[in-house]
């Protein structure tokens, strides 16, 4: 579909299609960004390997569904349990010794375990593209004149449910309040009897779990599982910078905005630049935001006191 061709209705349909795909993909970005923000809020650790966590989720779910032929109601919980185990291993084995170390060490350690995960996945399953199990019917249905793929719709619905669930969890449950307290001030939380290390572990487990869910959804959206899913994980950076590194609302809004922007720029600028604009547009946005408003839309401004 080349923009400029066709009448107004076709152009409108094209733009709406891009918007809807953008919102659907953006909601998955929002989900992954949520995990990222949780870890950062709770422990000020930045995870530079979100792509590999997404890969992990996608491969494990593929393995349980297609390789071991488990029924869905066993495979999906099993995948989630494995991801929680991974989160615990990462927090306990790798990040706990790193508490208090300079940020470059923490960044490198996240690169380190991302590399280990990638290597192990490569060793066990190889790097060929695996077809992802079709969890949804491939027939597009029509929202007015715009054809929408059910995968996109279901992924959007699932992400909205998860985000609402997380918001309620943080607002009303005891553990959610404990996490918010730790994110606010670790020392005070400790003095009130909250196990800060437990909260760290919990935040990592939630992060790996949402990355896994993101991997499953992205795998179904793309129809295949291969190592390029890791690049999608890196898109979480423009999202969290746009939204603010420590804001959950920012992760959601930023995710949808980046998804929409990415698709719109891809749809309209690809013919001019010869393709691939979708990959680089979010990073151009990233640079602009870092220049204009480094703390994002909803992030807390850090004031350095001397």
């Amino acid at each position, binding site marked *: 579909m080349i923009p400029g061709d066709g009448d107004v209705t076709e152009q409108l349909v094209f733009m709406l299609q891009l918007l809807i795909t953008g919102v659907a993909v953006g909601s998955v970005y929002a989900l992954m960004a949520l995990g990222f923000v949780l870890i950062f809020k709770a422990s000020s650790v*930045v995870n*530079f390997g979100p792509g590999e966590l997404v890969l992990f989720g996608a491969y494990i779910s593929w393995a349980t569904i297609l390789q071991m032929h488990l029924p869905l109601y066993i495979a999906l919980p099993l995948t989630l349990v494995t991801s929680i185990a991974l989160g615990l291993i990462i927090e306990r084995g*790798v990040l706990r*010794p*790193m508490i208090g*170390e300079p*940020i*470059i*060490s923490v*960044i*490198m*350690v996240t*690169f*380190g*375990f*991302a*590399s*280990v*995960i*990638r*290597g*192990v*996945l*490569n*060793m066990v399953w190889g790097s060929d593209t695996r077809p992802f199990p079709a969890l949804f019917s491939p027939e597009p249905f029509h929202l007015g004149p715009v054809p929408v793929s059910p995968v996109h719709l279901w992924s959007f619905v699932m992400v909205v449910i998860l985000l609402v669930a997380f918001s309620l969890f943080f607002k009303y449950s005891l553990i959610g309040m404990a996490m918010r307290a730790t994110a606010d001030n670790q020392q005070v939380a400790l003095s009130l009897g909250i196990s800060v290390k437990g909260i760290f572990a919990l935040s990592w487990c939630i992060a790996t779990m949402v990355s896994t869910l993101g991997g499953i959804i992205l795998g179904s959206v793309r129809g295949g599982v291969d190592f390029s899913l890791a690049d999608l994980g*890196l898109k979480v*950076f*423009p999202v969290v*910078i746009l939204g603010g*590194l420590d804001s959950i609302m920012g992760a959601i809004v930023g995710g949808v905005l980046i998804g929409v922007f990415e698709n719109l720029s891809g749809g309209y600028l690809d013919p001019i*630049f*010869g*393709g*691939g604009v979708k*990959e*680089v547009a979010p*990073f*151009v946005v*990233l*640079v602009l935001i*870092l*220049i204009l408003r*480094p703390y994002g839309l909803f992030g807390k401004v850090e004031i*350095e006191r*001397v």
Partner: protein
Amino acid sequence: MPSLTAQRSALFLFKLFAWGPLMKCGGFRLRYRDDERIFDTRAPIVALAVLIGFLCTIPLVASTYWLDVLNRIGIAIIGAIGLNILIGFTGQISIGHAAFLAVGAYTTAVLEAKAELPFYLAIPAAALVTAAFGLLFGLPSLRLKGLYLAIATLAAHFITAYAIIHWESMTGGVLGLLVPTPTLFGLALDSDARMFYVILACAIPTTFFAKNLFRTKVGRAFIAIRDRDVAAQVIGVSLLKYKLLAFLISSFYAGVAGGLMAHHSRILFPDAFTLLVAIDYLAMIIIGGMGSILGSIFGAIFMTLLPEVLKLTATSLSGVYPQSFGLIASARDVIFGLAIITFLIFEPQGLARIWARIRNYWKLWPYSY
């Protein structure tokens, strides 16, 4: 059997006359100038000269395969020193090193292929272009610190990668860019042995320049910025000038390394400059030791030899476990990740610190401090 006193006096005389000149002890500093000397005694200078002489004779005996490995180590040393200047000495976190290497490599190739410059002009010119590029991407460092700067350099990497893949008229995109063979006075430098001398000729001055940099005002300014940049600004270190200078020098090094890389691989693909390359260089300086020139060298050697050691292990295991060859790439990732994690947990100051400990042990033996 000599008596106990005889043994003890022999040991004492040995330490006094033989151990002293051999080891780096007795470095008394009587003048301010002595404080700034790189080598306190003559022994290390002699040792270094012997080492360089030895390196010059290696191409006569080494096989092409190992010369290739040594060339890659040489290139990695230059790149790692550049990155260490930026991250280890100035404290500016940058994940964009692969982008700078790519700019250096492609500019060299384009200058030689299209402008027909000889390589000894193309590589410095490309390094200057890369330095300007680094200056541009160092501008965010004036506003951003730490994590935000790291993310900004990540974005710079992706934008550069996109530009390289899509600017096909200049870079050939994914089809690759052929690098012409360098010639020096009519002699074609097309073998690994000849490239070895070129790389050695580039690595030695750059290492000495870096080592010397940190006893000058510029180097001290860098270290001040790393330690506490607000305090540095208060005492008059211009953050603008020195942060940008750090990016400039570091990118110059990356440009030289990239240019040598172009000649080493003969054909350039964008695949050779992925984010993993930047992470490899980061690992080099972290495993080797941040803030240490010797550390960069150790890290470069370690990271380049790691896949070679794995290949040797796989070859020896292939009798027992025939699939081991296919697993090398993934095994490298796993071991690389584990090495980073282990070093960061147990020895955050890297191989340079381990080496310093071993050296001090022998220097002070039998005393412990």
